[in-house]
């Protein structure tokens, strides 16, 4: 896979958030909050299917992480990963997620981990390797969070298998998926006026 958007190192980005950046980031979060809500129900329903190799289910884990990469890739502002994930988490809490307030905690961890990677490039590098690194960082945050909250008793081997499955999932679904979605959105013409639209 090539570079997501042409330039590897862009110009010094404008860091002030316009109203449009705020609302579009938030609405991406909201759209994914709705997706999360449906995905959360499907996720628990998938359990019987994966009862023999439950860690294989974590190959689908990265659906939860998409806003943490997609929203920053579109608006390219500091804080976009955390803001989009928190809005998505807040929506799925308010409309009644299975995971309740923990959605907010995991949303924060997932967003903040991706944010660190983008901050490290000073929000100037949006190439595929950086997106993949942010996605894997986000998955790592989620992995540690889940270990502490939901899988305390599980043996180390299974934890490592889960981590591996989540990392693969993050690169393919979160980073790859975000690039494909941005391409489709750009072709539809809705990204005009955003850095990702050029």
């Amino acid at each position, binding site marked *: 896979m090539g570079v997501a958007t042409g330039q590897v190192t862009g110009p010094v980005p404008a860091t002030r*958030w*316009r*109203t*449009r950046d*705020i*609302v*579009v980031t*938030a*609405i*991406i*979060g*909201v*759209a994914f*909050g*709705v*997706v999360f*809500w*449906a995905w*959360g*129900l499907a*996720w*628990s*329903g998938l*359990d019987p299917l994966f*009862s023999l190799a*439950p860690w294989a289910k974590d190959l689908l884990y990265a659906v939860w992480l998409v806003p943490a990469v997609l929203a920053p890739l579109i608006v390219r502002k500091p804080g976009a990963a955390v*803001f989009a994930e928190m*809005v998505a988490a*807040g*929506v799925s*809490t*308010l*409309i*009644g*997620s*299975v*995971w*309740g*307030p*923990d*959605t*907010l*905690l995991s949303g924060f961890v997932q967003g903040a981990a991706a944010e660190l990677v983008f901050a490290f490039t000073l929000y100037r590098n949006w190439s595929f390797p950086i997106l993949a690194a942010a996605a894997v960082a986000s998955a790592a945050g989620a992995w540690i969070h889940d270990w*502490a*909250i*939901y*899988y*305390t*008793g*599980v*043996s*180390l081997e*299974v934890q490592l298998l889960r981590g591996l499955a989540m990392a693969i999932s993050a690169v393919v679904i979160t980073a790859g998926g975000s690039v494909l*979605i941005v391409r*489709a*959105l750009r072709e*539809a013409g*809705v*990204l005009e006026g955003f850095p990702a639209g050029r």
Partner: protein
Amino acid sequence: MIALVELADRQLSSPLGRASPLLKLGIALGWLLGLALTTDPVPPAFVTAVTLASGLVLGRIPAARLAAGLAPLWAAALGIGLFNALFSAANTDPSLAVVAQAGPFRLTEPAVVAGVGLAVRVIAIASVGVVFGLTTDSTRLVDSLVQQGHLPERFGYGALAAYQAIPRLADDLATLRQARRIRGLRGGWHPRLLVGLLILAIRHGDRLALAMDARAFGSGPRSRFRTVRWSWWDLVLAVGAALVLGVALSLG
């Protein structure tokens, strides 16, 4: 289909409905982190009981509504519990009592206890979430986050404006699915639907942002129509919540 939760005045004017949403959020997260300290099933069971009782009494949530909100959690709790029991590190320890054995697979007693503990933890977390959702109005939540939690108001109210687009997004999704069927494509769910949904969502976000800018949103200091203030009841609730967590952990 997905819709914004319509809350009745009865719940919003209840003691839990009048409490500061920021405080309720703090309690929910505090309990969650507190429960993460133990895998014993008793503390989360106690927290669940207190939560459901206060939802019914302090939140005046109708029992049927509460039960409906809790319905999806059983599968999740079962899944997490089984995963922890079956793949517990304790299962490989030969000195522990075996509950069940099938070929090379052993299920030991501590593994079962931990599995049950984590399943109950999921139930506790979900109950807190359901009671929070059924007693908290989204506008008041954002008012509280901005006024009491000092969240920057452009982000708080920007997010609220986007949140209120949910019924619209649900309609858009229904239209997109019908459009696929009219074109002779199979119904059901397809990843292309997500792209269509995002296109419509971003367009709506653009119009919303334009309308907000036209009304000088975020360009200067704001006056407030609705104010959220700390009250004595918030203090009582905070102390009560801390006591509940303390008692729960001392039971474990």
